């Protein structure tokens, strides 16, 4: 295998190995909150979570670049206190993947926690269980198909992410060129066979995720 292709595949796998657990950890409570919460703050959060779906990826990437840049309101304290530089780094790619995937992770859970689940949560509460036991033993199992569907959709979206990754990761060869960015690079340099192989690889993974999604019963 071409070492450049191997690096891109390895980097993408590493990014997904961090991003997918993060999507689960943040996506499930966020979906629960947006599905069951009330009030303006929840409404605002709902709009924010939806933005990566609505806005052009470049615009989202630019916004995050301003926020997480060296002088940005979030980037500066991260660099100063934790010595973490998000822009043009592995962390930037993870942030791009999570940002792209989170709306698709959240939506199925948001829909699942409405309706019948309210009664089950009340029942658990009446049976003496605190909220975290209810969440782990009632909410999560009840929403497991939606969580799985959300994870498959979000993973697919995060894998194919280009715009936000380009602005946050910088597409630095040998450092931040994920598979989807490498396809762009290969096409740009006229190396169509390499672009074709990588595109087929992504397509195969996407088909696998779609099959898995169908098997969970999610739509």
């Amino acid at each position: 295998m071409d070492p450049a292709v191997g690096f891109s595949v390895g980097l993408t796998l590493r990014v997904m190995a961090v991003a997918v657990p993060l999507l689960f950890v943040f996506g499930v409570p966020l979906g629960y909150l947006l599905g069951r919460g009330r009030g303006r703050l929840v409404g605002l959060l709902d709009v924010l979570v939806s933005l990566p779906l609505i806005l052009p990826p470049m615009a989202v990437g630019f916004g995050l670049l301003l926020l997480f840049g060296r002088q940005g309101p979030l980037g500066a304290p991260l660099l100063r206190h934790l010595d973490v530089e998000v822009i043009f780094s592995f962390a930037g790619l993870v942030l791009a993947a999570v940002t792209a995937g989170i709306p698709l992770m959240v939506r199925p859970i948001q829909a699942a926690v409405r309706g019948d689940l309210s009664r089950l949560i009340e029942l658990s509460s009446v049976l003496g269980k605190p909220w975290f036991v209810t969440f782990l033993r009632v909410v999560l199992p009840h929403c497991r198909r939606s969580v799985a569907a959300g994870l498959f959709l979000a993973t697919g979206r995060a894998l194919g992410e280009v715009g936000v990754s380009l602005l946050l990761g910088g597409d630095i060869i040998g450092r931040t060129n994920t598979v989807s960015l490498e396809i762009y690079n290969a096409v740009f340099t006229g190396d169509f066979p390499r672009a074709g192989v990588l595109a087929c690889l992504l397509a195969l993974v996407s088909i696998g995720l779609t099959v898995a999604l169908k098997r969970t019963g999610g739509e």
Partner: protein
Amino acid sequence: MLSARVRKKLPHFTLDVDITCPAGAILVLTGPSGSGKTTLLRLLAGLDQPDEGRIRLGGAVWCDTSARVRQKPRQRGIGLVFQEYSLFPHMTLAQNVAYATNDHAHAAALLDLFGIAHLAGAKPGAMSGGERQRGALCQALARRPKALLLDEPFSALDAATRAALRGELLRVRDRFAMPIIHVTHDLAEAALLGDTVLSINAGAVDPHWFDVQAAQRLDEETVLRGRLARSAPPPGLFPTPEGVPA
């Protein structure tokens, strides 16, 4: 003794009632749809909060708005059975009952008592409506509740199963000696089960509602009986369901 004097503003009226139910008795709440019965039950369970009022079980104060006491549902030690969704669909019956208690012997004894021990490994989706509601009663009783609240638990069942479960509820009353509040639309069920029957209409106790409805139903039945007698239907066309009181 469970006692509650509560007031809560609802979209179309204000719920304002004062109820008491001694241990070992069934207080039936009946009345038209949307009259505030279920809301009252939810206030007792702590799932909703009254604007004003006080709810007590014996010496324990569950809610007292003037003293700013509002116990959470899990602190009240109650059993609650809804019309539907009274069991967790992803758990087996045994897991459902065990969810409410760590006392496995007690859980098994309850399943035996209701004759559903053979369904311990079944999930609610694979059980009949009557079995599910028996399971829900087991789950509600598993944590040895201090009061039992039932929100139309039998209304989705067929007549024969409903009649059987009414009998089982009377056994629960005699065996567990706690206050039982039972919400129903069914006048016959109210009359059969209630040591006290309280009609709630537009948020207030209506002492005449039950009598008016019962008289109206008797009139209707008289007309139907007369019509049937005149048309002389073939024998067996309208069988009386087993166990349903005439």
